[in-house]
């Protein structure tokens, strides 16, 4: 799991952008998705997630707003911006080419 968790941590930004591309979301929901995809093996720390959100927001890739929850507590939502969308496409391309290179490099034959 250690290679996977390193890779996940290294691509936090891409993962968040990918999730927000599907629709507005909030910290815990994204973390829950990561946990589900890794069969409970990995999840981000709250602080790590928040730092990533702040960084993305600072760069103008995402926007945040406070949702009005009927249940009482207010929740902070994030949504992707057009700039973020473009960055996501680029990051995805980079990841795909990196994946190909690594596949070649680690292939046994």
């Amino acid at each position, binding site marked *: 799991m250690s290679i996977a968790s390193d890779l996940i941590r290294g691509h936090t930004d891409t993962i968040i952008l990918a999730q927000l591309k599907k629709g507005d979301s909030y*910290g815990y929901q994204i973390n829950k998705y990561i946990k589900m995809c890794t069969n409970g093996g990995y999840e981000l720390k*709250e*602080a790590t997630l*928040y730092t990533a959100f702040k960084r993305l927001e600072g760069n103008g890739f995402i926007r945040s707003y406070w949702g009005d929850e009927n249940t009482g*507590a207010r929740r902070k939502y994030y949504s992707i911006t057009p700039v973020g969308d473009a960055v996501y496409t680029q990051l995805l391309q980079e990841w795909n080419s990196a994946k190909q290179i690594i596949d070649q490099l680690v292939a046994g034959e």
Partner: protein
Amino acid sequence: MEERLQKHISILFQNMPQDDNTEEIKAEFTQNLIDKYHDLLAEGKDPETAFSLTVASIGNINDLFPNDNIPTQTMVDKQKKRSALLTAGAIMLYILCVLPPIITDMFGSQYYVVGAALMFVMVAVATGMLIYNHMTKYKPAQNENMVNDFKQWQSGRPSKNTVKRQVSCIVWCVIIIAYFVVSFLTGAWYITWLLFIVGVLVNQIVNLCLSLGRKEQ
């Protein structure tokens, strides 16, 4: 249990700058953690385990704040040196402050006032140095020690105590200076010691005012 989580977060963020940004982070964290806690309960974890797991998932919150108020080791060393210099210099001035009256006295009693004035200037400078040193000294935040944090959190804002100490320091310096000025000017040494009792009184009144002010908050 939600209150317990909230309390835990409050204590955790105690040493961080208390502004809107921190409040926002706290609100966001609290909401996420409460959700997580309930999910863990739904998975069949017992409340205590769920709480520990939730708290463990917070991670290192120091990453959230730029470290510009945490000095490096060389800065701490430099400050220590400066602090030692200021204190040593102040004490030297205190010891040497009797020299001007002694020396001017040798030239004749008409220079007596000059000597006394010089002495007070030296005392004032030394006292100023001590106060400046005390006020600008870097005090490391004890965020490793949860118990201390909690105690401080219970006893209210720590800054009030610092204010109390500084006010008390200033009051005593003023009293000492006043004692010498009044005594030298009037020569009534047999009675001027009463000023020190006045000092105790003033100090207590100031403390009382500060305590009352805190209660009102």
